[in-house]
């Protein structure tokens, strides 16, 4: 798949952060970047559009990023999606929970453009999307 054809979904409850991540991904050459602020919206979007990668914040309100990851991994149509957790949450137990639940990679805030680029490309290559 060509870079410009890859679809990425960003789930982040901080408006300004969401806009920043979207802008960076666009600058990297990803043309199809959708954003939303919680798991309910994300679930609805995943049911109607096709994505190759999800960048998801941990704390999203009612349903956490971890619970959303678990939903994705048990859903027949979504289970092979690349999934990167984007968060300031780095207590050992929670990181281990995310790994056990099938997260592909983990981005710890503060984010840098280089770090995001490395992780996004890494997961897309691992998942043989690129």
């Amino acid at each position, binding site marked *: 798949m060509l870079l410009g054809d890859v679809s990425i979904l960003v789930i982040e409850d901080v408006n300004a952060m969401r806009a920043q991540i979207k802008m960076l991904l666009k600058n990297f050459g990803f043309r199809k970047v959708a954003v939303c602020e919680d798991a309910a919206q994300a679930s609805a979007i995943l049911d109607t559009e096709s994505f190759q990668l999800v960048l998801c914040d941990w704390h999203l309100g009612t349903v956490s990023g971890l619970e959303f990851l678990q939903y994705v991994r048990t859903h027949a149509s979504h289970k092979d999606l690349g999934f990167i957790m984007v968060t*300031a949450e780095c207590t050992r137990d929670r990181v281990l929970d995310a790994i056990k639940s099938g997260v592909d990679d*983990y981005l710890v805030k503060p984010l840098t453009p280089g770090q995001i680029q490395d992780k996004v490309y890494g997961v897309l290559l691992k998942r043989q999307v690129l």
Partner: protein
Amino acid sequence: MMIAPNHEQKIEDFIAELAGFAQIAESTLSRIENDMDGNKGLFSIFEERMIAIRGTALQLSLPHIARIAGIGEEIAAKGAVAPARSQIRKCVGSLWDALTTVKYLLEHYSEQTGEEQEILMHRLEATLKAMGGARSAVSADEIEVLLRNRN
């Protein structure tokens, strides 16, 4: 830092959003204070808002705000599992101090912490230590290792 320093408006947008998080944390803390036994579970909401403030403050290169939010996050985590009312009360008192400082620092985000805030932070750090200290955290490098060794 992800945001160019000359994007003052973007920083203002972030700060305005963080102030909204602080507002949620404040109303949550009031509810816990009004019913310490019944609303102990709300410490998790406070903790989540502090994590959001910490993460965004780190993104904005505002480490002094991230530091106090991090202390608030850890004390809230202690409060959620505190077995005794006296401990919950101690957590609530400390969190009011932490939140007041976070709100002040958000309003004056370009300033560094003054002596008064430093004293308060040391006191809160001592309180956290007396409660058993912060939870075990892992660095980005350690996460890499955990991810590599997952199987």
